């Protein structure tokens, strides 16, 4: 669990290539009409990209459980706000 094990330039370049590829794919897919699946695909690709950035560029991969906790707890609150609000506005 040390930062050195993930700090390789080759890894960074590989992650970068994946991020660019996913970006081009998501823009291309947006021109194809998949109905509601367009939203699902776009958000899945965005989340894959976000995970790559967090794991490798922000070095979460080699971090302690404490840092992981600091990173994940706000996501929980974000989902709470999002779905709590939507439950009100959608079922009103």
């Amino acid at each position: 669990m040390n930062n050195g094990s993930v700090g390789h330039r080759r890894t960074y370049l590989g992650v970068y290539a994946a991020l660019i590829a996913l970006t081009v794919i998501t823009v291309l897919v947006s021109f194809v009409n998949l109905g509601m699946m367009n939203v699902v695909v776009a958000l899945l690709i965005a989340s894959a990209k976000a995970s790559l950035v967090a794991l490798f560029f922000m070095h979460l991969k080699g971090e302690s459980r404490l840092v992981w906790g600091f990173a994940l707890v706000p996501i929980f609150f974000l989902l709470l706000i999002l779905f709590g609000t939507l439950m009100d506005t959608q079922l009103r």
Partner: protein
Amino acid sequence: MSSPGAEPGGPAVAFETAKLGVWTFLATEVLLFGALFTAYAVFRAKYPALFHAEHLKLDRALGLANTIVLITSSLTVVLGVDAIRKGKTRLLRMYYGATILLGAVFLCVKYVEWTAEFRHGVFPGTNIFFSLYFTMTGLHGIHVLLGMGVLAYVVVLAGRGRLSESYTTPAEMSGLYWHFVDLVWIYLLPLLYLIG
């Protein structure tokens, strides 16, 4: 900034503490943008036809180009952090300088987009989609601008010889913030440009 060895517990503890501090700050940022993402979800559910018609007015090619610019700037930051971990100060300054330039390119493209929208009579008050568009991209733009300032400060610190392989904290912390700004844009691209 005092000398790194002065903190109680030594430099390793100081580094971990700084890291938890930045992640805590980023938690507040998640909720700041989260409020806007929630507003987006609520109004998109309420006016799906309006969101679809309005999002077609945005230029996907510019959105794609700017995403590539921002992702590239994240790469230069992480390479800068990698450089200072090996004690290469000059390389750090080069990479962070490149990041600041890429941030400026991003803001210039954003400026071109906004002026084109104003020319076409589209303003923040035009409708709820564009209210959200201008608020979200504007708040994000402010974050890019602030990030450029913080990175410039790190370049100055490194120039004064304050950073080394045994004291990388300012470079690593500003890097975390810059990656977060990139993260927000990764979600803004599909929500605003692609699926409206």
